[in-house]
């Protein structure tokens, strides 16, 4: 207990005056005036018989409380300055203070290089991630929005119901478009646009090209969509049969600088002449519909107007405020007029096509499809990484703030306001953020190529500077500076000068929050690590699971119908190569179509079995090593095989209600044609592992229209075998480029999206782990600083270094443990959902969690140990010296 000094009026008045004067808006003269007033009041009270101390205590409240005086004076301050013509001095003074702040800030940053580097890199990494994701998300969301009428345009699809199965299809009757515009008032215009299969032969007078981007469409493509025509009349450009429009770059490629309009192109294997009637601007990359050439759809005039030909992708432009439901209803009525089947039409908004989660099995070739899951995932990662970077900054800056307690104390004693100090520290935080922002731009530039490879985008750094993104970086920087800097700024500014100058450590009160932040970071890291591991396992499983056929050493050649009569000769010639084991026609992997089949016992009106149908030749089973479980293979010795013999897979046999052995010699009908089962093959994964193995029937293709030749080659001398294959190809199919693929790669392509996922997750988990460790480093540094003296005393009392390291690390083990306890169930739930996409999947097992937990713990301990060992080794003579 301190004893109170006797009251001294002059001391009391001096203290009071100092308080009043601590605000700059109150000048010495003002203070004189106020003090004079106070003295008058006290004298009057003393004259009334009060004691001096009593009088002082009574008079002071009458002066109004300190904060009120201060605000009142500050309100008139600038006015007063202007009246007294001192405003300029004031501004100069303020700037000089600012200069001092800047000097102190730079000095601090330089003095604490280590933590500055951690701050700036941590934030820069966070910002860079955020920017990358922003670029990605903006690009994904920009699809098809460049069309002027984008919000009124729709793509039509139909839902067909056969029995209890429904199909979505984009292939609509050719007559629908014209009937739609005629009969539905709200439908202003319709566009049919069909993409061609890839590698269409296009000849000019000089060269032959193989094009992937051929579209069959009509003039309205250029008026309804915003694909500007550079040459030609948008109203009539494709109205005549045998006309074609080119993209500007294609025109340049074909004809150099010369005018292409009026010249001719020869399309297809039969080299039909098409007159060039227009040149359009290259289709932007963010259009879901991609094409380089548009041929007039009226070339197939008769078919285009018929309702029987269901193969036209149709877009429609509606009136503003048109009711979609009405349009759909009228459409369905139109459809019923022409078709027996149950058809429901749907309107898919143009801007929603790219990111739609439509159950539509696949987009037609030339239609790009994005992935909304990626969009959400990337946005989430961006926000989380940035958040974590902010948290770390907050932690590290708070830790550092302890070391600056004295500066704060001195500043306060010489008259700094809390507000000024907050401004100072926020300013410092902004400075760091500015540095981080600049660095992040560099990081984005460096990582964009990798990021583009990962996401299949062609993003450029320069687009950061374009339009809506331009203000984003500064805005984010400022926001992050405020967000990350405000906590330490307020904590620092709230320091009591008395305490800090007496070296009483502060800051214990907010440690729960800081720990919470670190736990949050580890939860994120753990989630990502577990997710990465499980995705990896699932991918390894799908790649390793026996497919039921041998995918290794198989080259796929895709003549796609170009061979006609030479088909057999082509295969035979190839089989004679020394490097080739065997070759067979057949579709693998993937299957083109499915239809309803009826076992002989069942009538047509009963439920049919939806069966995938694929054409194979006699050698398909041995070439791909697909096992026969009952009956025999298709064989040229049985003449009737070509007409009606089929092989079923086990699933199909069971679906028909037969055991594999019984199925042989049974018959069923498909499209009113009877087929006879000659054999049953073991189930093999003809589709991806996401799908169950479905019923499959394999038959011979009588019309030589096989599309794929599977060639099993010997593992040695692959290069020369491939070269020999090319020679044979060029001999048989001179007008097509030699293209081949390896079966194992094609199978792998089923999981391309998942493989990208895995890579993204791997990067993200490494990144979050890195950032989390930076955060941990800050926390440990803080804690070691706080407990320096405690450690010193413990050492003096005989604690061992290992004992101290354990003491200091124990808490962090608990934090990581807590994070694990929260992350594990979350990860389990999330990954279980993800695995739900796969018909064949792994079970989530505990070693994954154990591994993730141990990894996090190990990395955390490694990070902590550096600081804790350093603290434990410190000489107590040093740490205790000041006490």
């Amino acid at each position, binding site marked *: 207990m301190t004893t109170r000094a006797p009251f001294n009026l002059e001391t009391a008045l001096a203290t009071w005056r100092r308080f009043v004067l601590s605000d700059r808006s109150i000048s010495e003269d003002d203070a004189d005036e106020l003090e004079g*007033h106070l003295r008058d009041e006290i004298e009057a009270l003393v004259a009334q018989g009060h004691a001096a101390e009593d009088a002082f205590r009574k008079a002071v409240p009458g002066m*109004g409380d300190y904060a009120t005086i201060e605000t009142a*004076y500050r309100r008139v301050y600038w*006015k007063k300055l202007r009246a007294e013509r001192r405003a300029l001095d004031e501004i100069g003074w303020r700037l000089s203070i600012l200069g001092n702040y800047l000097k102190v800030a730079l000095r601090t940053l330089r003095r604490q290089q280590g933590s500055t580097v951690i701050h700036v890199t941590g934030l820069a990494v966070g910002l860079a991630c955020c920017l990358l994701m922003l670029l990605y998300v903006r690009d994904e969301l920009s699809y098809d929005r460049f069309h002027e009428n984008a919000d009124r345009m729709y793509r039509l699809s139909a839902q067909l119901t056969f029995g209890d199965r429904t199909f979505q299809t984009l292939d609509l009757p050719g007559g629908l478009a014209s009937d739609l515009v005629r009969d539905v008032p709200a439908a202003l215009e319709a566009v049919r646009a069909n993409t061609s299969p890839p590698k269409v032969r296009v000849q000019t007078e000089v060269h032959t090209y193989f094009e992937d981007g051929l579209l069959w469409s009509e003039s309205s493509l250029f008026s309804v969509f915003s694909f500007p025509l550079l040459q030609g009349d948008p109203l009539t450009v494709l109205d005549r049969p045998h006309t074609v429009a080119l993209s500007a770059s294609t025109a340049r490629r074909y004809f150099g600088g010369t005018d292409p309009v009026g010249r001719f192109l020869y399309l297809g294997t039969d080299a039909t002449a098409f007159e060039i009637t227009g040149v359009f601007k290259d289709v932007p990359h963010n259009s879901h519909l991609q094409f380089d050439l548009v041929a007039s759809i009226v070339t197939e005039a008769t078919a285009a107007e018929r309702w029987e030909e269901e193969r036209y992708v149709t877009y429609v432009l509606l009136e503003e405020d048109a009711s979609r439901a009405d349009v759909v209803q009228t459409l369905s009525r139109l459809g019923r007029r022409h078709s027996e089947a149950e058809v429901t039409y749907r309107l898919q908004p143009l801007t929603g096509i790219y990111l739609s989660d439509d159950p539509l099995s696949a987009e037609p070739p030339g239609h790009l499809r994005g992935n909304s899951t990626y969009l959400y995932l990337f946005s989430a990662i961006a926000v989380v990484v940035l958040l974590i970077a902010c948290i770390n900054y907050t932690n590290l800056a708070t830790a550092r703030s302890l070391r600056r307690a004295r500066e704060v104390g001195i500043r306060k004693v010489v008259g700094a306001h809390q507000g000024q100090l907050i401004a100072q520290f926020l300013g410092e935080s902004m400075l760091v953020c500015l540095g981080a922002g600049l660095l992040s731009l560099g990081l984005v530039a460096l990582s964009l190529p990798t990021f583009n490879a990962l996401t299949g985008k062609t993003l450029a750094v320069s687009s950061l500077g374009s339009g809506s993104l331009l203000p984003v970086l500064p805005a984010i920087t400022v926001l992050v500076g405020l967000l990350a800097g405000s906590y330490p700024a307020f904590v620092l500014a709230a320091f009591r000068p008395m305490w800090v100058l007496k070296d009483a450590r502060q800051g214990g009160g907010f440690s729960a929050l800081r720990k919470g932040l670190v736990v949050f970071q580890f939860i994120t890291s753990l989630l990502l690590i577990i997710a990465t591991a499980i995705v990896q396992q699932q991918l390894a499983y799908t790649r390793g699971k026996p497919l039921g056929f041998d995918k290794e050493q198989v080259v796929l050649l895709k003549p796609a119908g170009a061979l006609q009569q030479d088909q057999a000769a082509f295969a035979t010639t190839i089989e004679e190569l020394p490097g080739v084991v065997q070759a067979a026609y057949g579709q693998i992997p993937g299957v083109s179509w499915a239809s309803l089949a009826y076992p002989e016992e069942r009538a047509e009106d009963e439920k049919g079995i939806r069966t995938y149908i694929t054409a194979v030749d006699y050698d398909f089973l041995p070439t791909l090593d697909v096992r026969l479980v009952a009956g025999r293979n298709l064989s040229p010795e049985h003449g009737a095989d070509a007409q009606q013999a089929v092989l079923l897979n086990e699933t199909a046999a069971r679906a028909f209600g037969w055991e594999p052995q019984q199925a042989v010699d049974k018959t069923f009908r498909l499209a009113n044609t009877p087929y006879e089962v000659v054999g049953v093959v073991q189930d093999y994964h003809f589709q991806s592992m996401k799908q169950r193995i479905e019923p499959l029937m394999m038959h011979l293709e009588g019309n030589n229209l096989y599309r794929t030749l599977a060639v099993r080659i010997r593992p040695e001398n692959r290069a020369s075998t491939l070269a020999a294959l090319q020679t044979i190809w060029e001999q048989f199919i001179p007008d097509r480029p030699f293209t081949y693929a390896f079966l194992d790669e094609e199978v792998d392509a089923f999981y391309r999206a998942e493989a990208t996922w895995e890579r993204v997750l791997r990067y993200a988990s490494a990144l979050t782990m890195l950032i989390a460790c930076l955060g941990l480093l800050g926390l440990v540094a803080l804690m070691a600083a706080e407990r320096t003296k405690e450690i010193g005393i413990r050492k003096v009392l005989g604690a061992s270094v290992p004992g101290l390291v354990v003491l200091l690390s124990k808490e962090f083990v608990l934090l990581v443990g807590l994070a694990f306890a929260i992350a594990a169930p979350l990860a389990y739930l999330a990954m279980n959902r993800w695995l739900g996409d796969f018909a064949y999947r792994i079970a989530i097992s505990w070693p994954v969690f154990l591994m993730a937990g141990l990894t996090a713990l190990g990395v955390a301990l490694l990070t902590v140990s550096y600081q804790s060992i350093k603290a434990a080794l410190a000489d107590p003579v040093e740490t205790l010296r000041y006490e």
Partner: protein
Amino acid sequence: MPAKALTGASAQTIVLSILDRSDAYGYQIINRVRDLSSGEVEWAAGSLYPLLHRMKADGYVDSFWVERKGERRRRYYRITPKGQKALDKERREWMAVHRIFVQLWGIQPSLP
């Protein structure tokens, strides 16, 4: 119960009126107000001084330091011509308001 707050509308006019009679320093002004209101209106120094400073910044009053022997330095306030003009205008308005209240409340003016 003495009203401590300087009621916004009247405070400036009262200060101007007091200074119109004679120059005064802050403590005097507060005392005058207390006396004139028979102790019913008690101004706080903390609000008076900022008001004086604002009036000075607005150019209604001027201030000067006076040092008399045996007394401490005091800052006196003096009304400026601009302040006079403002006071005249205020006075007219207050009188108009005054007449309204007199008639509304039926008060007979009593001669001193």
